[in-house]
């Protein structure tokens, strides 16, 4: 075997061992979800077992998965759209008409993300109670939009920065007003960037647990609440917990896998040219 082939074989082995180890917890959860409760807790792991779907049935019986999933979808996509509506004009202005304050504004926005939500939970809870936003889709949509807004503005800012200035100038020579410039040139050109920004926002909103647990009870509760209801230590129902977990993460995992290429481009925040 030539050395390059041997090298490739070694790399393949190493790569797959690493991939297996990193993915193992998820795989194990997935396998466990098809075991009986007895198999699941047996101290000796077994890979060869009779797969059963009873856990999924049990989970669905106890809590209506689809309602939670629908809530998750409404809240994460809703908040993403809301945040994009606010962020696109702001990022456009900052990328193309930078002023002395632009950098400061961007960094300030980012710094608001560093405040622990728990530090302001009490006032937000009280305000939401008074505005009757508790346990409503709208409430979480607003919170998640605000929570992700700084990151979204920043990602869009880096995407807009990458649009060649020449093209916008050609647009101006052709008589495009700022609004037409945004609508006919910049937004169509930035669709991939806006998409990957939106993807990240959806993923972050989908997985957020703190606000969704504290601001919802039943009606608007997303999948994070669904999982929480299975994690209460009322016994070792691991198989059911695994089934519930699999159901909670499957949509977003598949979504993330399908969109990983777009996602990555945005996550580099312009650090990779």
């Amino acid at each position, binding site marked *: 075997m030539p050395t390059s082939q041997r090298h490739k074989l070694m790399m393949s082995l190493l790569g797959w061992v690493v991939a297996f180890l990193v993915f193992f917890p998820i795989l194990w959860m997935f396998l466990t979800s098809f075991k009986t409760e007895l198999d699941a807790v047996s101290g000796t792991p077994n890979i060869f077992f009779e797969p059963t779907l009873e856990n999924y049935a049990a989970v669905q019986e106890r809590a209506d998965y689809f309602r939670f999933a629908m809530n998750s979808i409404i809240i994460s996509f809703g908040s993403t759209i809301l945040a994009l509506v606010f962020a696109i004009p702001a990022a456009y202005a900052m990328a193309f008409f930078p002023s002395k304050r632009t950098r400061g504004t961007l960094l300030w926005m980012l710094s608001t993300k560093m405040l622990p939500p728990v530090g302001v939970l009490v006032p937000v809870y009280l305000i939401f109670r008074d505005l009757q936003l508790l346990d409503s889709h709208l409430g979480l949509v607003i919170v998640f939009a605000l929570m992700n807004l700084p990151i979204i503005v920043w990602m869009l800012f880096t995407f807009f920065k990458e649009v060649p200035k*020449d093209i916008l*100038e*050609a*647009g*101006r*020579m*052709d*008589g*495009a007003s700022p609004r*037409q410039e945004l609508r006919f040139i910049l937004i169509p050109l930035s669709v991939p960037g806006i998409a990957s920004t939106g993807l990240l926002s959806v993923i972050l909103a989908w997985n957020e647990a703190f606000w969704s647990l504290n601001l919802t009870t039943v009606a608007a509760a997303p999948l994070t609440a669904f999982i929480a209801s299975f994690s209460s230590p009322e016994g070792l129902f691991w198989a059911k917990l695994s089934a519930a977990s699999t159901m909670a993460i499957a949509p977003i995992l598949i979504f993330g896998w399908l969109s990983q290429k777009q996602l990555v481009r945005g996550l580099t925040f312009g650090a990779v040219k």
Partner: protein
Amino acid sequence: MATLTLRNIKKVYGDVEVIQDLSLDIEDREFVVLVGPSGCGKSTLLRMIAGLEEISGGDLSIDDERVNELPPDRRGLAMVFQSYALYPHMTVADNMAFALRLAGVSREERMAKVGEAAKILHLEPLLDRKPRALSGGQRQRVAIGRAIVREPRVFLFDEPLSNLDAALRVQMRIEIARLHNSLDATMIYVTHDQVEAMTMADKIVVMNAGHIEQVGSPLDLYHHPESLFVAGFIGSPKMNFIEAKIASVGGDGTKVALSDGTKVAVPVSGGGMSSGDAVTLGVRPEDLTAVANDQATGGDLAGRVVVAERLGGETFLYTEVLDGQTLNLKGPGAMTYRVNDAIRLRIDGATCHLFRDDGKALPRLARNPMADLDAEPVAPGAAG
């Protein structure tokens, strides 16, 4: 009809004056090339004309109307960018029709105009493609087509050929020149390539460090450079410069002495100069001749060949004369000199230029007839 008048134009970035007090007249239907080294302000000037760059001072008028404050699209201009700046998400047809669409022109009219421009530029088969599916030359043609469709008063070109390969550049050069003839439009063209300037321009504007060095027809600049800078910039290979001292000043010319004592008589007016003043003698490589040893006279410079570049049809010799000064010579392809050969170079004073130590040229006594070849017909006796 489109004439442009630039009066005392200034451009200031912070404390830096990148264009100082620049005035220029551009006639209707003229092909004007702004040329100069990078950073000389030629692109900035073009962008100010386009309206993409604010004018810090002075007046810019198109057809006697001051346009300083007009937005770009209301100036009646079209611009072809160096990067082509095509809208990547639109088809070729949509790219070309975009300005008309924004102006509210009806769809049929848009398509008619695009079709017309496409025909001129042979773009018809490409109208439904996206820019990324086009070659560099095709993209360039679409960019030009986008400009044509708007029927502008003035076309602006910002180094449009610099991203093309050499063969395509020659082809597009010819196409743009042809376009200028058939459209009868005023065109302003920025380039750093003096060959493009020489081949395309009616009028060349040589810029240096934010000001105009000289304005003239290509051969005017070639034969009558007013400064060392223009002399060095126009012509390829570059003009040779030799340190010299004034030997004598007379009515029929000025005689200079080189460091080895060789005397050269140049037909320029030596007004204000006196014997012993330091000057620079300029001689174009094509005006130098190599002479065989047996025909040598006292007026020839002895030297040694350092590099020989043979292009087949012509030969460039880089020689070392006069204690290390380099003189380049352009000769026929049949020259047999090899590296390290001794060589004798003859300078024909009649074709030489003299520059004072402030870089200004001493005026020639007579105009070269070639310099006025392309000029508009002039009244008899006016040409010198």
